C-alpha cells in the first residue's frame, strides 16, 4: 500500500518536479547535494594559497616591459 513506485510517481507528475528530476523532491538529488556539499565544505589545505602566492611572486615586474 505504502509502497509507491517512484518511477510511476515521477512519470505522472507534471509539475516543476518533472523538469527537475534531481530537485529536493528526489532522494538522488538530495544525496547528490549532500555528497557534494560535504566535499565543498572540506577544509582547503594551505598548499593552494601558497601556490597562488608563488605564482604571484613569479610574475614579471609590471614596470619591466
Amino acid at each position, binding site marked *: 500500500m505504502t509502497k509507491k513506485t517512484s518511477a510511476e510517481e515521477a512519470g505522472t507528475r507534471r509539475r516543476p518536479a518533472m523538469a527537475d528530476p534531481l530537485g529536493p523532491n528526489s532522494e538522488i*538529488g538530495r544525496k547528490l547535494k549532500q*555528497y557534494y556539499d560535504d566535499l565543498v565544505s572540506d577544509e582547503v589545505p594551505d598548499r593552494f594559497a601558497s601556490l*597562488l602566492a608563488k605564482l604571484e611572486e613569479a610574475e614579471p615586474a609590471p614596470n619591466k616591459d
Partner: protein
Amino acid sequence: MAVSAAFKADLLGAIPSLRAFAVSLSQNADRADDLVQETLVKAWDKHESFQPGTNLKAWLFTILRNEFYSQMRKRGREVQDSDGLMTARLAVHPSQHGQLDLKDFRAALEQLPEDQREAIILIGASGFSYEEAAEICNCAVGTIKSRVSRARTRLQDILKISGEADFGPDAIATQVMGSSAA
C-alpha cells in the same frame, strides 16, 4: 598583462568547488588536489584568455576536466582501479540495512562511468545549467541530458539493491571483480 588581484581572489574562492568537482571526477582525494593544483597553474598562465564577465567557475571546471581526462589518457585508464576506489567500493556492503547513507551513495556514484558521473554532478550538485555543463564537457546539451538521466536511473538501481537486506558481499565482490577485470 599581470594577473589582477581580483582574479587571484576569485581563484582562491573557487578552490572549494574545484576540489569537490575534482574528487567527484577522480574519486581520489590526493589525485583531486593534484588536479586542482594543475588547474590553478593553468588558469594563472592563461588568465588572459578568460573573458571577464563570463562564468569563471565554468571556465575553471573546463580546465580541470580537460586536465583530468588528459591525465587519464596518460595513465592508460588505471584511474578507475586506484586503491582508494577499491576500498570505498568494497565498503558498500557492511552498511546498515535499508538506510541510505552517504557512504552508500558515494559507493554507488563511484560505479558510474565518468561521463555520467560528471554530468550528474555538474547538473545536480555544482549548480550548472545544462547549457553550461555541455560547454564544460564539450558536448551537446542533449548528450548531457541523456547522461544525467542514465546516471540517475543507474544510481536508483544500485541504491535500491544496496538497501535490500539480502544483498550480500558476494554481489558486490562480483561487481568489483567484474569491473577491475574489464
